[in-house]
């Protein structure tokens, strides 16, 4: 091997080693900080009027834009839904959780006063078991869901569902809402106690992953029931960080060995060049 060749080999191996180390470092880092469909959630010590969508406290809380697309119901006109995005902010205290949703809707539809009239609405879907991921369309019999459903005529319903077509209203809603329409935008806050002492409501533990999905209804566009703009499953990553996995240990070891090996070869290569 010529000197020049050795130089070239040393440089290439050097770059390769850097790349391997970077990959080894970034793998676990990506898994923790920027999970797919993770939502920020703020832990608050006191309520601070968070039930009010216009409360000052919301300005400090991180929002996440959630993408919406037409729910797959197959109903007439289901593919033609109006709203594409909603911003989600979430906070909880020791006792309650507050979820604030905002979305663009220039026309307020708040009264059903005609057979053709539908109202604006928004819904939050939680799995009955908070870390499960049931089928997105209203869950299934084996994995049911809770749905908190607000409509602009002032009604709020708590629903239990085990698949499309099975939605049933729970007795009295334990969810409360407040809503504001301002400057072409709806803002709605859902509030519920974290604990739920019954067989239908999702028990919310704040040290566990909580899966969540959202849907928006544009009343002006005759959206209702299965015709809505819905999100995929998102989650609040409230579970504690786990220790390094076997894979991570292996990657770190390989990375470390790669650094050592490359240093050795570089030194060897340079020495030979000098000679």
């Amino acid at each position, binding site marked *: 091997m010529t000197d020049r060749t050795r130089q070239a080999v040393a440089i290439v191996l050097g770059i390769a080693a850097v790349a391997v180390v970077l990959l080894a470092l970034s793998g676990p880092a990506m898994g923790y900080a920027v999970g797919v469909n993770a939502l920020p959630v703020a832990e608050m010590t006191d309520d601070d009027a968070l039930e009010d969508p216009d409360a000052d406290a919301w300005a400090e809380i991180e929002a996440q834009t959630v993408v919406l697309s037409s729910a797959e119901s197959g109903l007439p006109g289901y593919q033609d839904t109006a709203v594409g995005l909603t911003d989600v902010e979430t906070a909880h205290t020791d006792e309650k959780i507050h979820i604030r949703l905002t979305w663009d809707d220039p026309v307020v539809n708040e009264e*059903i006063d005609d057979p053709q009239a539908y109202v604006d609405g928004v819904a939050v879907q939680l799995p009955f078991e908070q870390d499960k991921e049931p089928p997105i369309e209203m869950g299934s019999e084996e994995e049911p869901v809770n749905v908190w459903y607000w409509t602009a005529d002032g009604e709020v319903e708590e629903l239990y569902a085990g698949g499309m077509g099975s939605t049933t209203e729970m007795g009295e809603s334990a969810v409360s809402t407040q809503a504001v329409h301002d400057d072409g935008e709806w803002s709605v806050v859902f509030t519920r106690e974290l604990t739920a002492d019954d067989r239908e409501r999702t028990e919310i533990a704040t040290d566990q992953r909580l899966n969540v999905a959202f849907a928006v209804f544009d009343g002006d566009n005759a959206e209702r029931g299965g015709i809505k703009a819905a999100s995929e499953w998102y989650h609040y990553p409230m579970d504690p960080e786990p220790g390094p996995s076997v894979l991570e240990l292996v990657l770190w070891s390989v990375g470390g060995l790669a650094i050592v090996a490359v240093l050795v070869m570089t030194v060897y290569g340079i020495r030979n060049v000098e000679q």
Partner: protein
Amino acid sequence: MSRTETADGVDNQIAMVLDLNKCIGCQTCTISCKTNWTDEPGREYMYWNNVETKPGEGYPRGWEDVGDGWASEDRTERSPGEIPSLEEYGRSWEFNHQEIFYEGSDEHLAPEEDPDWGPNWDEDEGDGQFPNSYYFYLPRLCNHCTHPSCVEACPRQAVYKRSEDGIVLVDQERCRGYRHCVEGCPYHKIYFNVEEKTAEKCIFCYPRIEGNGPDGEQHAPACVESCVTQLRYVGRLDDPQGPIYKLVEEWEVALPLHEEYHTGPNVFYIPPMSPGQHTQEGESIDADRIPPEYLEELFGEDVHAALDTLERERERVRTGEESELMEILTTNDMENQHRMEVFADD
């Protein structure tokens, strides 16, 4: 497929035949239905039974042009329509009865608003040119179809066809007011109650036919019993002794309305015969006042044979012969005209 075939899962399909040769458009059936069922809040604009003038736009306005029930005979796909607005149904108007009858006002009796459409706005207008203009009355109600597209439309199975008698009903607990049924019925005979936020429709007076009304007696539906000319027949669809089967299957004079919707309606119509046309000078023209082509649009091509049968049997009676068909159509035997024993709730 026979028009008298009962749906799967139904014990005894209840059915109705209306003889359009007898309808005088008095709306007694409409009012008797309304006073029984639809004078509740949210139902003011609903006429579970209505009588419209044909040719005419009907109730709701232009209903025949919107929505086709099933897309084809194999019923694999629906062809939903649109939900009408209150304007297209015709708002229920507020009148000045109080002022005129009790407060001495000199005003004319009139709606307080200035309407430009109502549920019977084009009454008696019809079509055609003098001296051969024509119209007839068409009473309509839910057909309690064998293959109801409203039942199919509901994603929650809130609309169902009950097994005792095939009456189609809306479960008020399950209904969440989506109104896919309203857009799914090609006859526009299921309505939305804006107060209750649920769908509502003709119930074929099931408490009456069960014998569960206030007097504990079995009764025919209100529209049937109240009819001034007694033009309606009620009975089991496939009862070979009953008037429905005889008029639909044997004599083939009773026909479904808009059979091309493929829903298999269980309400049938005997088409209206009409006098001959004549010139302005009074000379006869060999043509019917009501054009058979128009009747074919409503009742299909079998309407021509039906009209011929009616004419032939009438002629037999005119010449002194007997006709079972004319016996049925002119009977005073109410027990035969309303054959409902099998539907009583015992």
